Structures are given as C-alpha cells and as structure tokens.
C-alpha cells in the first residue's frame, strides 16, 4: 500500500497542482487515478516514482527505481526498432526477472506476435501502447505506474490492457491514470478521484457510482467535480 499524505506541489513560477493531496492505494487490485486533463495525474506519478519531490507532505513507501516500472502517456521509443527488438531489449536489460503466466502468453499470441517484425514507426498508436505495456508487464517489479494506458485504444484493446494490469495487480502494486469511467465497469479496481488540487473520492467503482449518478459514468464524473467534497 502506498500512502500519500498532505502533499502539496507547485511548479516553479507556475500553477499550483496540489494543496493537500491525501489518498492511499490498495493491494491485490488495480488502483485508478481519475481526474480532468491537467489535474496533475502525471505529476503524482513523478512524485511516487521519486523523480519529483513534494514540497510538503509525504509519500510512503518511496521505492527505488529498480522496483518501479513507469509507462508514460506518449510511450516514447526509437522509431527503427521492431517489435522483436523491443522485447529483446526489455529482456536483456532485466535478465532473470521476467514474468510469464497464462494471461501474458495469451496476449502475446493474440496481439504481440503480429507486431514482432513491424517497425515501431509503422505501428499504430494503439499497437505501440499495447506492445510497450505488454513488454513492461513481463518485467517483475513491486510497483507499476501506467499513465493513461488505454488512451487512444479501441474498446477491445483497452479491455485487453486492463486485463493485463488486473492480472499484474494480483502480485504487485498497480496504479494507472485515466479519464474514462466507462472502462472501469466490471473491473476490480480502487478509484482515486482527484479534482481541485486534492482527492475528492476514493473507493471502488460501485461506491463512486452510488454516490453520484448511478447509471451514467459521464454524469458521475461531472457530478463528482461539482460536489468536490473529500470522502475517505
């Protein structure tokens, strides 16, 4: 479990991102940080990963880089690499720490094999994201941070990615960010809703829906932002 307590952060001479951010993640299932664009979801990842220090408050535990995987929104990669090159480099850089399980094998067969000989620059945005996330999921780490892993993906690929993350969450801490509450239906996950520089809700998807607009995820998102009250 990662505890974020009373964290404040302002970019130098720029906007305040957090004034008093507190939440904790749960073990055994995915943790999803939800919020509007620009609310500071990536910034909290930078702090959890130790790349940026909070100006006030604490994050506990702060893991070393060797225990973390951090997928960024843009999934940067050298464009000339083929899918096979990419999997090889992930393997070579982490010898002896590969994960294998039935789910990963199934994703490999269904989605990754077709990309092995294709260059990264020729892949679609969704294919790139899926390949990199798959490669990251094959590495053993204590904490996985995925920044908008389903952004730009079709619903089938998005479901596949969330399946990968859910599979991973059974043995490690997984935190991902997103905007789309639709995707969280029927997915076992702990939702952390951030708005106006602090956490306005944390709990599971059903609790979030029950609190705001029961049948409409979009309306729930809007209502939660309007209500803007801290609920622990």
């Amino acid at each position, binding site marked *: 479990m990662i505890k974020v307590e009373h964290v404040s952060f302002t970019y130098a001479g720029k906007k305040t991102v957090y004034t008093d951010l507190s939440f904790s993640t749960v073990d055994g299932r995915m943790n999803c940080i939800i919020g509007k664009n620009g609310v500071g979801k*990536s910034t909290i990842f*930078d702090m959890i*990963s130790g*790349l*940026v220090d909070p100006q006030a408050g604490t994050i506990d535990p702060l893991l070393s*880089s*060797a225990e*973390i*995987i*951090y*997928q*960024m929104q*843009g*999934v*940067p*990669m*050298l*464009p*000339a*690499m083929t899918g096979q*090159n990419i999997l090889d*480099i*992930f393997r*070579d*850089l*982490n*010898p002896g720490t590969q994960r294998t399980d039935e789910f990963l094998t199934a994703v490999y067969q269904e989605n990754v094999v077709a990309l092995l000989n294709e260059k990264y620059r020729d892949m679609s945005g969704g294919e790139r994201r899926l390949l990199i996330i798959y490669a*990251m999921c094959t*590495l053993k780490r204590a904490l996985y941070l995925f920044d908008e892993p389903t952004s730009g993906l079709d619903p089938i690929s998005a479901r596949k990615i969330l399946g990968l993350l859910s599979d991973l969450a059974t043995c490690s801490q997984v935190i991902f960010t997103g905007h789309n509450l639709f995707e969280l239906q029927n997915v076992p996950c702990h939702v952390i809703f951030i708005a106006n520089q602090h956490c306005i809700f944390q709990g599971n998807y059903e609790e979030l829906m029950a609190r705001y607009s029961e049948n409409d995820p979009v309306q729930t998102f809007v209502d939660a932002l309007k209500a803007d009250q801290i609920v622990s």
Partner: protein
Amino acid sequence: MKKIRALMKFDLEEMLDNRLAFVYAVIFPLLFFAMSNWKNIMAQQTDNTEKLIILLTPYLSYVVLSNALNSVILMVYGRRESGFLKMYYFIVERRNYLMLAPEILFYFITLIECLGFTLLAMVAFHNLSPLLLLEVVFIITVIYFPTCGILSPLLLMPIKPPSMTAISGGVLLLAVLTYSYTTSFLPLRVLTMLNPTILTSDVVGNVLAPTLAGWGWVVGVGVVDCVIGYLCMTHMPIISKSQRV
C-alpha cells in the same frame, strides 16, 4: 556491463536504420581535406608519417568533437526532451547507463571513421604506415572520452531545443576556430585546454615529441574532463527541462 551492451545494441540497431549517420561526421572534413590539399595530392606528393599526422589533426579533432556533440550529447538531450530517458530510466535502473551506452558505441564509430579518414589520406599521400594507424587509435582513445566529458554540462542546463541547437553550433564553431590558439599565460592556458580541439593538438604534440611534463599536463586535463563528464552523467536530469512529457 551486460546492460550497457544491451543498450549499445539498441542504439546500433537505430543507427543501422540510418546508414548515412555513419558518415555525417566525416564527410565534410573529408571534402575540406581533399580541397585544401588538392594540389599536393595531384602532385603525387609523399608526406612522412609525422607530417601526415600533423596535417590530419584538425580533421580528426573535428570528427571526434562532432560525434561527441551531435551523436552523444545532443542525442541524449533529445531523448530526455522526448520523455525517453524518463521512461527507460526505470527499465535500465541507472541513469548513467543511458548516457554511457551511446558514448561507448560512438567511441567505436568515431574510431572507425577516423581510421577510414586516415587510410584515405595515407593513400592520397602515398604513405601506408601502420604506425600512423596505431597513433590515430591511441589519439582518439585519449581524447574521445574527455571530449564527451567536457561537453556534458550542456545536459545540466535548462535549455529549450531551439536554443540547444544554436548553442551546440556555437560550441562547435568556437572549438574549431580556436584550434591553434596558444598562450603562455597559465590560467588562460588551463582554460584553453578545456577546448577539445586544443587538447587534441596537445596530445598529438606529445605523441610526436613526448615529455613527462607534457603528458602530465594532458593526462591531468583529460582526467578533469572525465570527472566533469561522470558527475554530469550521474546528476543529469532525466525529466525534460523545457516541456511536460
């Protein structure tokens, strides 16, 4: 070391995709060399090894400087600005590997380019001297890493990409233009030795006429450059300084 090798393989794959990159650093010095020495080459002049190495020094120095700047420092800078370093830092686990891998790879590429350049010059001046090739290997080995080291502070500066392009162009120009600058005023001499092209010139001078003081001076500056490079490598920011990625 395994991780550095894996990253070097990664960079090499990327380079092989753009084979012209192998000759970027060498093509213009080669053209300039041919133009400057056209009369002598056409006159079938034969130069001895010493004369040839002196003739080659500014060109080899430029190749080293150009590779260290454009293929190592600016490449690492570009990767940081695109977010590549931030994401791969966690996969590699140590930030200095992300710099060390291209630096070592380009050491070998620089060596190949300089040997190729020297071979062409040897053919042009009818002096096929294995000793000259050995000297070139030695000189490149001595100056390449200090050159990368002294350029590394560029990675610590909060510079936006367009400014970095201008600054690196300026650094290259200044280094080349002051290649033959000499002074007996010690503090200024220490400062000028930080210029990789002057360091190259001093190394060549010491290869041709070695003295203990001369080598002590060159090794001292080289070590300082390498220490600067190491400190920059281990402390360089891996998050973009100019934009959110």
